């Protein structure tokens, strides 16, 4: 025990590195929010407390997040029941399509909604024409617009987790309940819901945290309606750095409080639990009318869910300045895509996003693998701490990390672990890396935990040293987990908007910021073309990750 409890130098290095990357910047924000060059001060805290707009933003963040949870649950849970319980015509394909919003990076989803339901969007214009209205039927702005986007992109959490949980429900439990005389309602309340509780809790937490950190939708649609992330960015653009820090602290406190309230309900637990026995059989829908109605409803739904993707594709072929008030664009061209590869100014963001995401992914996978290998050895000292540190950035909204990194790495003080990275090409990969650690390490840690530890021991008794065991046994067996972790990391980094907008330089501007500037120049075609690239690359990386990582490897 004494031998295994000793902290290895490599673990110590990892621990120190994680503390420096994940905790230190946030601590610096905490300190600098109450400490300016003149010394300790509560001026900025008081400023924050005295301004009603700050309280409004905090309150908006809270209620928007709660409402997003409610809406996402309202859409996701019935869909999960529908696809898990009933054998619908084309159900398998539909069941897959319903998860499609997941491949839209946040900013791209917002963009698609703008083209669809914005003042000059297809749907708005169509309704205006049909009903001969003089004005657009609605304005896609404020809380309603934000909630619409959130509901669309976040119900997927409820849908996927609840469906997985329903499928893992032991069918014989339902039969047992029926044989004990429980009716459908009582079975639902006493058997099904308790089984679903971890999945529901996990999905609610996931939705709440994502919604709390959501930046793209409030930034584009918010207008005067501010939530904390947009408030922080606005304050910082105003130059009130220390007030922005206090706001950052407030948002962090809100996030951690939510996490604390939801403690115990983890998405991870939802996947575990009673896996024995066969899942409940799907109920075939026999009545012809019902089948038809369900099929119609299902495909309509799929159409609505696919509309943003299709819209993006359509708009990406619109030449600059040709589409103003017509319901459908009058002209089409492939120019927008050609520009992306021919115009050096347009190519640059593509190249940037590619290399930034690649570097960040490689680093995240390496750190997550090292951390997972240490954390999986339960008895190793510091393993719990390393696991917690790897997961921490998930609990902290992206805006907070952007501010924290911008604070920590804007000063040259090597003795305090601070160097100037802001304004260099390295700040963005670093930010992506930190933000990706939780997702990547969760995937890899799950893979490491699933490995039989006696495989390592078997390799040792067969005379293989650590290097050979890692190369020949551990890494090949971890391939699916590594690929899954890497694809998650890459997709997130490739489409990142929230940290990029605060940390980019002209030389490292990523795709998301180029989309924003194209939009500002009303060059919707190019913006949509970038969006399509993001969407296709994300989907392709996911598909490759699932195909390449899933096949073989495990026996």
């Amino acid at each position, binding site marked *: *025990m*004494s*031998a295994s409890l000793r902290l290895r130098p490599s673990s110590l290095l990892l621990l120190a590195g994680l503390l420096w990357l994940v905790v230190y910047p946030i601590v610096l924000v905490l300190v600098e929010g109450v400490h300016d060059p003149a010394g300790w001060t509560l001026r900025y805290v008081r400023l924050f407390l005295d301004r009603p707009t700050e309280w409004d933003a905090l309150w908006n963040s809270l209620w928007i997040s709660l409402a997003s949870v409610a809406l996402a649950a309202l859409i996701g849970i019935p869909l999960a029941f529908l696809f898990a319980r009933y054998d619908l015509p084309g159900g398998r394909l539909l069941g897959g399509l319903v998860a499609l919003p997941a491949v839209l990076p946040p900013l791209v989803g917002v963009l698609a909604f703008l083209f669809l339901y914005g003042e000059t969007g297809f749907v708005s214009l169509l309704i205006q024409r049909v009903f001969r209205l003089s004005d657009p039927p609605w304005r896609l702005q404020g809380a309603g617009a934000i909630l619409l986007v959130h509901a669309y992109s976040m119900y997927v959490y409820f849908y996927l987790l609840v469906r997985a949980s329903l499928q893992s429900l032991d069918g014989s439990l339902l039969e047992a309940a029926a044989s004990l005389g429980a009716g459908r309602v009582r079975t639902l309340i006493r058997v099904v819901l308790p089984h679903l509780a971890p999945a529901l809790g996990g999905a609610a937490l996931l939705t709440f945290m994502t919604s709390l950190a959501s930046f793209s939708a409030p930034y584009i649609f918010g207008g005067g309606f501010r939530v904390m992330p947009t408030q922080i960015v606005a304050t910082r653009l105003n130059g009130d750095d220390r007030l922005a820090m206090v706001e950052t602290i407030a948002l962090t406190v809100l996030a951690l409080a939510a996490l604390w309230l939801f403690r115990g309900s983890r998405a991870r637990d939802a996947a575990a639990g009673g896996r024995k026995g066969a899942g409940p059989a799907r109920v075939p829908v026999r009545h012809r009318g019902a089948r038809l109605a369900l099929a119609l409803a299902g495909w309509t739904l799929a159409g609505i869910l696919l509309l943003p993707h299709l819209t993006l594709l359509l708009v990406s072929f619109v030449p600059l300045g040709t589409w103003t008030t017509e319901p459908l664009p009058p002209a089409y061209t492939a120019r927008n895509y050609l520009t992306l590869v021919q115009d050096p100014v347009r190519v640059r963001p593509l190249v940037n996003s590619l290399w930034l995401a690649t570097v960040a992914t490689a680093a995240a996978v390496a750190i997550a693998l090292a951390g997972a290998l240490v954390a999986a050895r339960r008895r190793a000292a510091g393993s719990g701490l390393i696991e917690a540190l790897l997961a921490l950035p998930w609990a902290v909204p992206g805006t907070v990390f952007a501010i924290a990194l911008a604070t920590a790495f804007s000063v040259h003080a090597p003795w305090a672990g601070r160097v100037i990275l802001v304004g260099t090409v390295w700040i963005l990969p670093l930010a992506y890396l930190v933000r990706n650690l939780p997702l990547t390490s969760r995937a890899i840690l799950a893979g490491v935990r699933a490995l*039989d530890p*006696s*495989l390592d*021991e*078997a*390799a*040792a*008794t*067969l*005379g*293989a*040293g650590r290097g*050979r065991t890692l190369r*020949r*046994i551990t890494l*090949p*067996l971890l391939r699916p987990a590594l690929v899954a972790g890497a694809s998650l990391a890459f997709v997130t980094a490739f489409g990142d908007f929230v940290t990029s907008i605060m940390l980019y330089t002209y030389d490292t501007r990523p795709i998301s910021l180029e989309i924003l500037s194209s939009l500002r120049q009303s060059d919707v075609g190019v913006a949509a073309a970038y969006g399509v690239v993001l969407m296709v690359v994300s989907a392709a990386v996911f598909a490759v990750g699932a195909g390449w990582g899933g096949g*073989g*490897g*495990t*026996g």
Partner: protein
Amino acid sequence: MSGFLRLESLVKRFDGTEAVDRVTLQLERGELLALLGPSGSGKTTTLRLLAGFETPDEGRVIVDGEDVTRVAPVARRFGMVFQHYALFPHLDVRENIAFGLESLGVHGAELGRRVDRALALVDLAGFGARRIAQLSGGQQQRIALARALAPEPRVLLLDEPLSNLDPALRERTRREIRELIHRVGITTVLVTHEQDEAFELGDRVAVMRDGRLEQVGTPDELYGAPANAFVGGFVGSSSTAEVRVLGPSERGVRIALDAIEWDVDLPPGGARLPAGPALLLVRPEALRLTPPDPLAVPATIVSRRFVGPSAVYAARTDGGAVLEVIAPPQAVPAGARVGLMPSRRAGGGIHLFPLDGR
């Protein structure tokens, strides 16, 4: 001290409690020792200390005169078969067996020859290209054995090698393993909680409890002269009852059970107990059923289970002790009133232990 493999008062503590408490054992070259004990008895930890996965807090492990206590598993050259085999699922059978040989620098034609030899040893020649997932449980077990033996380790360690096989296969595999190990002539330590397994495989059996060695001996020694009630109870079937030792008698010793006096003979070498309370351990074949009789302990039949051509009856004495007795299957119905007497040929089936002794 002599012996090819020696464990010298090994101690291993987890969180302050001794998982392995001063275990001393020695094995001759080519001997097969079975470590037998219930779960939590420290037998697996002892095996892991031998393999080098754990480092003892005290004591030494010596093989062939070399102290390997602090030698890493990689360098120890002990082969091991894991409970769940731990075959590498992404490598085929041949690659699995070659893995340990490659560590020794064996390559080319020599590698191929030795893999083939290992496959032939476990009677699976021609299985080299199979994937692990394509093998049955019994085949996986044999491949695991071939993989462990291929690099010609100094000592072979087997962790519950049969626990993952279905009962029908277990008996056959047991014989195969015993035959194979003796053919190869490798010094082997086997861990098991199955008494049958330990007795059939082990040249000697070491019974463990609470981290300590209770007794080490051949199967005959353990059965005929258990060192204490735990060993007696763990080995073979038996039942226990509290009795009073009255004193020596012409046959052996006089005891009283529920106020009825029995004159019983004790196995040679059994400890002579002073007069007073003691624990009686009795094998089912050492007792016989009689009709109610003033010289027999009155009892009621509680249940019956069939064992081969006979049946074992559980009888509750009026004093409350439940004793098992072997008798013909149709001897008495459940609920019948009977008497219990020591069988006339009880030889070796009755043991007395101090009451406070564990």
